[in-house]
């Protein structure tokens, strides 16, 4: 195998996307295709007292109107089976689907939706996750105890998933401290906000259905369709055309079964395309709001003696894929620090809000924001520079993490040093500017995955993979791995991907896992082909297969480059005999052991394979008259293991930093008292624009990571989204005089915080 130096190749799907020739799900058009629309609850909590679809069904051009009565009575959910396809007697958030319509065109479908009669007995709206933990709080799911659930889940009434991590003796640790710093922080929910609203097309042929869906996880989508419509996996085919962004919002099983059920009832292909408003309200995917209560004991010499954190996460109305958020949230509430005595308790609590789900590094950016803001408060309490405080207390190679994991080679200390250097930490700044710094972490997820690699008779290759490209470039990078294995160029390979009936299983574009796991599978598959090529070359060149080198499109005998044959020639020979086909999966790295900690509600998120570390340092400027904050520069240093595709990796960091700035300053979902989102539109939910993006310096700390992905790679897509908001907060706190304790730190909240301390500035 020859590893290509820093490949900066054009991604395979780039020209399609840039020129507009690429096709997305909403571009598909099938003969006789109908338009789907949903009837949503419109109220956040209510018992259905009347549901009458007869008038809708009578409208000419309406082919199908479905409710829960028309689909199998299946309660589903990956962690808690608390969900049905359509409302089952009770609606629990404003965009719960009550009925679905398929009609000849969008206007007819809308008329049919409007003609569906639904009446409700309104139930009390559970708007506040902390209040929902009270023993007398109204229950979102009165039948919670009868639901099926994953075995380790610890549940109690509105508490859908409790997790704790305990180590040492936290009371004794607090008693050893010179200072105990207590803080409360509140993070609002926010959204993935992909630019492509989701779209689904379903078409039946006999008893088999093909579903084109803008999903990040085609195999998960298939499993959901199979479970809810009671079909075997081999009769459901999910194909993903180009995906227009996901950011986690298109993880999980969503409306594929609704559209498939409509298509079956209507006996026609059916297409669903969400409006922007629907994209905000309806998916089971909102970044969870969380409240934090921290308590950290510290000695005057800068040693942390104990930490306690209590977190309450807003689960929303259904548990979706958020069941693990309490445990991974607890890890982020404790942070990558060496603390002998600790206790984290996290509750994932039902409310009548949109369900929470995996948005890019779920629980991490907001928890890092809260913890790292608190950490700066701790450092200031004992008069130690926040960077120095982190150098002393952060984990390091050979150290033990909060859950008792012993780390091999890790690069967190290098990240701190590099980010501080790139930001010019310590330089003299104008009075309205400051630099803040924060450290973050995120796991790599070790899961099964598979791929095929083949080389046809003309010497051109194909990778047939179950992996899903959501824009990160991870699938694109697979070509490089296969090419290096067999001595071809990345451009010599075409990708066949995003089709569940063609390729083996992959978990999808989720958990930053694509390169980590599918990369392993592709390397294993390509290695089989390479072995075939070496055998063929050995026969032809009269050499030992072990002495054959595959490079630059040729096979040659080691040490004798003249004795060679082209891979195209070997492929032609193989085409007349045993074909060049490889398949691979490879064993996923095993989870590390935990020592000396107790984990309640353990769903496997307290021990992290190949953990990633980061440090962001951000320079901000504050307008003291208005509270408006401007980010002037971001330095991002990452230990994500070996970087295989630097161009794509830098792009991941840049994009995640921009998302992080939005989460820090402008992106937050607010609810009214009735449980309705107040800003479900792109004008009022303020993403950052290109005009807002500051200069950035990105650095990768590349060290030898044990137990990692191909060539020592870790994940990358989520990690850079973790520490930006925290670093902004720590810069801002210096200018405001105290932390802004609610996320997003909007201009008005900043201004309020300034006024609270009397730190308001003079005239501009």
């Amino acid at each position, binding site marked *: 195998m020859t590893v290509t130096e820093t490949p900066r190749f054009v991604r395979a799907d780039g020209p399609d996307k840039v020129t507009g020739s690429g096709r997305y799900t909403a571009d598909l058009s099938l003969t006789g295709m109908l338009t789907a629309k949903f009837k949503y609850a419109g109220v956040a909590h209510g018992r259905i007292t009347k549901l009458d679809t007869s008038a809708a069904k009578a409208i000419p051009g309406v082919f199908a109107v479905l409710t829960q009565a028309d689909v199998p009575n299946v309660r589903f959910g990956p962690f808690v089976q608390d969900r049905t396809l359509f409302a089952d007697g009770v609606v629990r958030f404003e965009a719960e689907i009550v009925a679905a319509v398929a009609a000849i065109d969008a206007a007819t479908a809308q008329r049919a939706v409007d003609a569906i009669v639904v009446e409700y007995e309104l139930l009390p709206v559970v708007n506040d996750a902390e209040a929902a933990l009270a023993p007398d709080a109204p229950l979102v799911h009165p039948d919670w105890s009868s639901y099926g659930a994953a075995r380790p889940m610890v549940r109690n009434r509105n508490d859908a998933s409790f997790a704790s991590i305990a180590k040492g003796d936290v009371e004794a640790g607090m008693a050893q401290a010179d200072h105990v710093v207590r803080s409360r922080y509140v993070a609002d929910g926010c959204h993935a906000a992909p630019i492509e609203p989701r779209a689904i097309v379903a078409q039946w042929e006999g008893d088999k259905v093909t579903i084109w869906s803008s999903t990040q996880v085609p195999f998960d989508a298939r499993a959901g369709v199979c479970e809810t419509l009671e079909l075997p996996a081999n009769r459901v085919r999910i194909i993903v055309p180009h995906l227009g962004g996901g950011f986690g919002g298109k993880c999980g099983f969503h409306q594929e079964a609704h559209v498939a059920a409509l298509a079956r009832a209507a006996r026609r292909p059916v297409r669903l395309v969400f409006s922007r408003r629907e994209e905000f309200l309806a998916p089971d995917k909102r970044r969870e709001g969380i409240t934090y209560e921290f308590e950290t004991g510290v000695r005057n010499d800068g040693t942390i003696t104990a930490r306690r954190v209590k977190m309450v996460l807003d689960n929303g109305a259904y548990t979706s894929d958020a069941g693990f958020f309490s445990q991974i949230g607890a890890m982020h509430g404790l942070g990558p620090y060496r603390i002998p005595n600790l206790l984290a308790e996290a509750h994932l609590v039902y409310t009548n809000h949109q369900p929470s789900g995996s948005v890019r590094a779920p629980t991490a950016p907001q928890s890092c924001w809260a913890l790292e803001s608190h950490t700066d408060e701790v450092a200031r309490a004992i008069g130690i520079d926040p960077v120095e405080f982190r150098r002393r207390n952060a984990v390091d190679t050979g150290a033990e993490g909060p859950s008792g994991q012993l780390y091999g080679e890790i690069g967190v200390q290098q990240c701190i040093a590099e980010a501080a250097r790139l930001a010019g930490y310590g330089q003299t700044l104008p009075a309205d500017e400051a630099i803040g710094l924060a450290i973050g972490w995120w796991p790599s997820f070790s899961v099964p995955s598979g791929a095929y690699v083949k080389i046809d008779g003309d010497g051109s290759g194909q990778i047939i993979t179950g992996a899903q490209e959501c824009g990160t470039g991870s699938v694109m990078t697979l070509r490089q791995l296969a090419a290096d294995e067999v001595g071809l160029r990345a451009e010599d390979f075409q990708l066949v991907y995003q089709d569940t009936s063609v390729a083996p299983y992959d978990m999808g574009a989720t958990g930053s896992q694509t390169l980590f796991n599918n990369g392993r599978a592709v390397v294993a598959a390509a290695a089989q082909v390479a072995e075939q090529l070496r055998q063929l070359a050995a026969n032809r060149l009269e050499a030992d297969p072990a002495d054959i080198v595959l490079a630059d499109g040729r096979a040659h005998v080691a040490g004798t480059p003249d004795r060679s044959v082209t891979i195209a020639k070997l492929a032609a020979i193989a085409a007349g005999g045993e074909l060049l086909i490889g398949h691979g999966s490879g064993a996923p790295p095993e989870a590390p052991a935990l020592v000396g900690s107790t984990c309640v509600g353990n769903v496997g998120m307290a021990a992290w394979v190949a953990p990633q570390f980061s440090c962001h340092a951000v320079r901000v400027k504050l307008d003291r008259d*208005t509270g*408006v*904050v401007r980010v002037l520069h971001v330095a991002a240093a990452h230990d994500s293991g070996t970087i295989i595709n630097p161009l794509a990796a830098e792009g991941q960091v840049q994009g995640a930093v921009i998302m992080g700035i939005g989460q820090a300053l*402008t992106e937050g979902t607010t609810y009214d008292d009735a449980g309705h989102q107040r800003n479900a*539109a792109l004008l009022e939910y303020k993403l*950052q624009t290109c*005009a807002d993006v500051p200069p950035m310096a990105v650095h990768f700390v590349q060290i030898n990571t044990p137990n990692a992905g191909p060539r020592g790679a870790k994940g990358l897509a989520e990690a850079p989204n973790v520490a930006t908001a925290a670093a902004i907060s720590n810069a801002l706190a210096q200018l405001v005089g105290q932390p802004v304790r609610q996320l997003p730190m909007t*201009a*008005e909240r900043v201004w309020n915080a300034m006024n609270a301390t009397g730190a308001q500035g003079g005239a*501009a």
Partner: protein
Amino acid sequence: MSFTIARTLDEALAALAAGARPIAGGTDLVVGARHGKAPLPADLVAIDRIPGLAEVTVTAAGITIGAAVSHHTLEGHPLIASTYSALADGSALVGSPATRHVGTLGGNIMNASPAMDTGAGLTVLGAEVELRAQAGSRRVTLADLWTAPGRTSARPDELCVAVHVPTPAPRSGSAYLRLEYRRAMEIAVVGAAAAVTLAPDGSVAAVRVALSAVAPTILSLGGLETLAGGSVNDVAAAVAAAASQQATPISDVRATDHYRRHTVGVMARRAVAAAARRAAGETIAIPVNRSIGIGAAS
């Protein structure tokens, strides 16, 4: 349902008389319809290809800006940038580059949003709008034009064809600023325009100020005549106080009334300061939002 492309003004006016509504860039009309604000009118007449409607003309009294002149043209027009700067400041803040290339001044005015970015600047510059129907044309002041959010005093058969802006007095300058949470695709949280005329001794001879997004229509500040003769700093401080006092903002998802009342004073103070600098001959790049304060490059 019909869509007529008018080739002459007479064709457009005939279509309006028959009940059609005008469309130029469509940046309010189409987006509003998609968001469910108001359905698209059944009959539309496109006015973006009428000769002469997209021209800026210098007259003896000042300038005449055709209703179909785009924001992009306004933000880059040398005379408007130098002499009618508040209008250029506002035009340069509208939406995105794409919005500014298709969106028109006439559309912005007749949409009558209190958060519009050109309205406060036109108000302090003393602009009048020319409305034309088949029966003839009339000029109205902006204060008479805007009656409520989204409402004007124009009759359905009247088309806004031009905006007339008088030549400012010597030693005058103007500026428009808005509070914004991001630098593109934004709507004013609050905004303020000021037109300042300096006396030869550098004191303020006259000042006019108008506010956006703090009242049902663009709010022209009253009682500023008494400030004449004051220093720029004193006038700016008095204007800030008057702006906060006269504003009647609402609370919504963008900001509370309390915060708007405070920040509109900040915007008004900065607008007066920037206008006075321009009146003194200094060039501040368009838009002011990107040249001073938090919006500046560093």
